């Protein structure tokens, strides 16, 4: 699947991140290839979100370096870097005082796109994420959680970034909406081939969306495996995850027995 020789789009080289004396991330090495969806899986506090924020330099590493498209992050203009990376977070963070259209078009606008081009792009993106054109003139508080997260994705895609960082984007949604958005994400990814780093604590989501799963624990990378191999992995932590998630029927059966 992965072209082994191609140079990685994102590369962590021996990265550590320490804050107030605590190692949040240590000796972290990881390469993300073009067009893949790399899932960072781990429990709360394992360093997933920290790793993500190091990519768009919301955080800077204590030691080591992160390279994006071959260039060290420290040597880049941070604003340019961030505008070339789409960013989606769990709380969505839509601007409550802006309409959907202005939310989506903020970066294109500050980049000086023409009004016509902005409007066309917004309509195109609304369609891409499965929202009706009229959504453009609404405010975030008028939307459902699922619609809001769709807008969040559209906003991240606005300036057509090659890289997409997604920090538990679907975790706060109800199971049916989550399922719908996961399915659409897969379809979208088939079409757009973005390089995606996706943070989740949900193994099922990781298996469904990831081309590879990077398992993290206590600031360290435990293993990186494609979904199929993850399920068969002998690694104790990976196996514990697989056991913990089991499947729905098993949980129901357990309940029935007790």
């Amino acid at each position: 699947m992965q072209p082994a020789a191609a140079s990685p789009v994102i590369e962590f080289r021996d990265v550590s991140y320490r804050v107030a004396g605590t190692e949040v991330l240590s000796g972290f090495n990881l390469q993300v290839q073009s067009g893949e969806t790399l899932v960072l899986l781990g429990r709360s506090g394992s360093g997933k979100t920290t790793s993500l924020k190091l990519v768009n330099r919301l955080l800077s590493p204590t030691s080591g370096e992160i390279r994006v498209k071959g260039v060290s992050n420290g040597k880049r203009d941070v604003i340019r870097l961030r505008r070339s990376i789409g960013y989606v977070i769990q709380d969505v963070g839509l601007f409550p005082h802006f309409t959907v259209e202005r939310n989506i078009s903020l970066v294109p606008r500050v980049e000086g796109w023409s009004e016509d081009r902005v409007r066309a792009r917004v309509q195109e993106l609304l369609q891409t994420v499965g929202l009706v054109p009229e959504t453009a003139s609404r405010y975030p508080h008028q939307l459902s959680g699922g619609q809001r997260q769709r807008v969040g994705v559209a906003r991240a895609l606005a300036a057509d970034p090659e890289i997409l960082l997604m920090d538990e984007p679907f975790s706060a949604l109800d199971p049916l909406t989550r399922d719908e958005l996961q399915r659409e994400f897969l379809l979208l990814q088939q079409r757009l081939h973005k390089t995606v780093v996706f943070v989740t604590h949900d193994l099922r989501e990781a298996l469904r969306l990831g081309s590879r799963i990077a398992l993290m624990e206590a600031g360290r990378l435990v293993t990186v495996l494609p979904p199929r191999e993850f399920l068969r992995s002998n690694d104790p932590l990976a196996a514990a995850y697989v056991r913990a998630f089991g499947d729905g029927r098993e949980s129901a059966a357990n309940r029935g027995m007790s």
Partner: protein
Amino acid sequence: MNVVRFIQQNHDQVLELTLEHLRLVGFSTLFAMLIGIPLGIVIAHRPGFNKPVLASANIIQTIPSLALFGFLLPVPWLGERADRLAILALTLYALLPIIRNTYTGIRGVDPAVVEAGRGMGLTESQLLFKVELPLAVSVILSGVRVAVVISVGLATIAAAIGAGGLGELIFRGLAMVDDSVILAGAIPAAILALVADFGVGRLERRLLPR
């Protein structure tokens, strides 16, 4: 009523004093906004500064106004004209609500929104002007509203140092032991305060982010 008759007979003077009063309040509020809003923005972004700045503004607030007018009187350029001095003193009193509300308003912006903006590549100034200030504006204005209402009341005391304004009628009435003269100063002052409160309040609601 005597007050009505007094105002009818002296409407030119009452109007003139009302305008003087407005001038004191207007300038001092303007200066307090020019100083207080930027200061509030700075302390909202630099956590270390918020305590000393808010404490200083708080202390100023506790100085009795008459005493503050008295303290400032010997200051060279200021003491020459009572209205300058009054405007400075009123500005100092108006600072606290404006600084505090600017600080509170900006700190109250949802961190997820700020982080999303920063992560998307907004510069710090774009973040401030496109996100933080628009979202904080109604809280900031409610601070301005409090400041204006306080100033309208305090400005009456400025007449004690000869700065003019409606306080002049109040002090004159006190000296003459004539309630109608006191009321001729007090009622327009109260109306000013109410109108200012109402006006800024409306602006505040209109700018309320959804």
